[in-house]
């Protein structure tokens, strides 16, 4: 049984190529990003910066939700996923880097380098009474202080889980002391995450439409990051299996991962629909502006409904049957489509506020996504190669190896 993953050179090169494309896309995107007619006053390379935020958040969220999923396994005493624990851990390893980039992006905003967040511009705030009312929360010191706390605590927990997991491998875990302390830390992390997953999405995404608010927004964003992280975990596991690794992962474990993908797709759909329906139904001006902009004013109707049906109908139709959830080809196909769907989910959250109707989907978008993808894959696979693919001395290992449903 081959328990050591070697990051193939060809793949490594491919990630570098992707990162190179990303870098070129950033430079070209920045230079060619001129203010469109009618937006001259408020446009400061917004397309470029919005893309940077989109990719930064999208990939960071995968690492964050993977850490959440890992913590959830500990806290819920779940055994079935123990055989893929190293994959979950590897995906979570992107969190410190992704969150670091996020922090950098916010610092640049506070320094006035970009104008994605209206409330960071004192000129705008001076003339906007509504935003003035929110400055107690969005003011720079509290805003940045919070952001640093999120990033440091999330990353700290991620490193802690990883370190303890490797510790148990190397030094054994008599009486499962390490496991139980991970369980305790997981519970604490979940509490922290429960609050900060909402607040971070208000701070970093909802606040771009500074006037707008929705109490559901945090949970809705969270469900989107959860499903993307699950798909990443599934795709990576299937890839490793296809390369001859991880034969110890049973078909039932794959099936269970497929069930999660199915279930969380529904959770996302439920939260998206309820938020939309309640706002559409009551049609109150202060709330409906968000959807009015997207559906009528700025012409995102096709993208919004397209991604809604992709993220809802695809998993529903394709993953309903048991066999589909055990079929690598099916899971990969549906997984990639939903990931694309969730990219456009985040796209519709950010772009309308940043560039209004001047939306694009061109080299800047694709190239920058490719660049971040390259970075993400590089970090995840490098971390995967650093530890054996199967945990040792884990109390649920035997249960998971014999898992069958």
């Amino acid at each position, binding site marked *: 049984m081959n328990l050591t993953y070697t990051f193939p050179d060809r793949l490594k090169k491919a990630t570098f190529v992707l990162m190179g494309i990303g870098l070129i896309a950033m430079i070209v995107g920045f230079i060619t990003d001129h203010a469109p007619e009618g937006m001259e006053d408020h446009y400061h390379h917004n397309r470029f910066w919005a893309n940077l935020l989109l990719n930064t958040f999208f990939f960071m969220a995968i690492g964050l939700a993977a850490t959440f999923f890992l913590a959830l396994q500990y806290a819920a*005493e779940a055994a079935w996923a123990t055989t893929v624990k190293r994959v979950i851990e590897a995906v979570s390893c992107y969190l410190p880097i992704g969150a670091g980039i996020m922090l950098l992006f916010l610092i640049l905003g506070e320094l006035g380098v970009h104008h994605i967040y209206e409330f960071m511009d004192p000129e705008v705030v001076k003339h906007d009474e509504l935003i003035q009312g929110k400055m107690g929360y969005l003011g720079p010191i509290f805003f940045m202080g919070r952001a640093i706390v999120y990033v440091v605590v999330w990353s700290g927990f991620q490193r802690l889980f990883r370190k303890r997991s490797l510790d148990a491998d190397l030094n054994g875990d008599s009486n499962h002391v390490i496991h139980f302390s991970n369980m305790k830390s997981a519970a604490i992390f979940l509490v922290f995450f429960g609050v900060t997953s909402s607040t971070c999405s*208000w701070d970093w995404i909802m606040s771009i439409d500074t006037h707008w608010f929705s109490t*559901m927004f945090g949970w809705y964003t969270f469900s989107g990051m959860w499903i993307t992280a699950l798909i990443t975990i599934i795709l990576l596991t299937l890839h490793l299996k296809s390369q001859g690794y991880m034969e110890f992962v049973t078909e039932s474990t794959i099936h269970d991962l497929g069930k999660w993908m199915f279930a969380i797709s529904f959770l996302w759909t439920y939260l998206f629909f*309820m938020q939309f329906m*309640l*706002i559409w139904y009551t049609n109150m001006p202060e709330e409906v502006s968000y959807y009015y902009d997207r559906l009528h004013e700025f012409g995102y109707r096709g993208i919004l409904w397209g991604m809604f049906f992709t993220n809802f109908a695809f998993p529903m139709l394709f993953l309903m049957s048991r066999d589909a959830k055990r079929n690598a080809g099916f899971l990969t196909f549906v997984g990639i489509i939903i990931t694309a769907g969730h990219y456009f989910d985040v796209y519709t959250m950010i772009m309308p506020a940043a560039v209004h109707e001047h939306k694009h989907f061109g080299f800047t978008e694709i190239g920058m996504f490719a660049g971040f993808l390259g970075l993400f894959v590089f970090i995840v696979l490098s971390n995967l190669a650093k530890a054996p693919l199967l945990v040792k001395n884990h109390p649920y290992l*035997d249960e998971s190896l014999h898992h069958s449903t």
Partner: protein
Amino acid sequence: MHKESAIREPLIIVEKSYSDISDDIIRPIKSKPNRQWWIVFTISFVAFMWGIGCLAYTIGTGIGVWGSNNGVDWAWDITNFVWWIGIGHAGTLISAVLLLFRQKWRMAINRSAEAMTIFAVMCAAIFVVLHTGRPWLDYWLFPLPNQFGSLWVNFNSPLLWDVFAVSTYFSVSLVFWYTGLIPDFAMIRDRMTKPMAKKIYTILSFGWSGRAKDWQRFEEVSLVLAGLSTPLVFSVHSIVSTDFATSVVPGWHTTIFPPYFVAGAIFSGFAMVLTLLLIMRKVFNLEHYITVKHVEYMNIVIIVTGSLVGIAYLTELFISWYSGVEYEQYAFLNRATGPYWWAYAAMMTCNVLSPQIFWFKKLRTNLAFTFFMSIVVNIGMWFERFVIIVPTLCRTHLPSSWNMYSPTFVDVGIFIGTIGMFFTFFLLFARVFPVIAQAELKSIVKSSSIQYKKGNAHH
């Protein structure tokens, strides 16, 4: 081959053979009720009858006998409706969602939780039926052709969605519950000696033979029903929440309502399951099946859902400030500091602060304390619905229509009546139905019972 980790605690804590389990479950059905049962039953039944009296008085006189008035036109009726529907949630969650999550500890508690669901939904239905004012015309709630006297129902109204959601939930829960009961009824049928009882259980058990084919179909239908019920766990309370959230009333219209109502429903449902089971395990000597570990798991569900509800409360509170909408801000200020501040304080204390005590293992494994807490949570969740409804309606946009609300003896009477009905039905259920899903419980003897755990340790 199935494996179970050594660190998992046993779920049946005394050595029991299959036949011991059957004996333990059938004992309350075969024996005569004791004096305690009669006492509790009598009290419940009297309360139930008192409720029926108030109900008849309401129907005979009109809902003017309630405390509801022009401003506060929804009050105890809808508070009680939502409270009962919420309590009804845990049954389906335990039987469906925990089945999908393969939680073995659900086996000991799902039967009574499902029974509780059915009875709670019945109690909730009483308030829906009554609050229309003319309950004899309640069939107008259904989409009937116009010549029946009503106009075609308004499909845009969440109140109609409620009719569909609650009736679907009730029927699916009932089918789920009954399906699970069939093998257990068959076990009782086989052990009954009295001809009349034997005859009844024969009919109830639908000719169950215990062949492999029967079991295969049983497993399949359970899984299908679990799959159908899981979306229902979400839909029912989400739709109940839209009764409020689709309005433009400040404090009612907030997008987090659907998932937050679902979390709250599970929270209150588990509290009621704990209230009932902690008594039942003692009265029927089921301590070996419903163990401290089971109670601990339920308490953990209480912490999780209580915290989710807490996050939702704080989200609402925060966003109302953040929104900059002064009506929204006032609505929440009024809840917290207005004339009904004490209800808000009760809600916050009971639902958000008190469950946090369960972070201490000593307390979440303490049965007496858990019982006390389950009552606290039930009270808190009643106040949550009261806080949403009454303080909001007594301070609407137009200050000239501001007024206070206080319940009449009829409001109180009907509410007490539903509690009486709930306990009456549950006590009857406990005498003639198998209170633990023994057939399912037997399926974990070879993985999670004490003798298996010990046997495994020798290897």
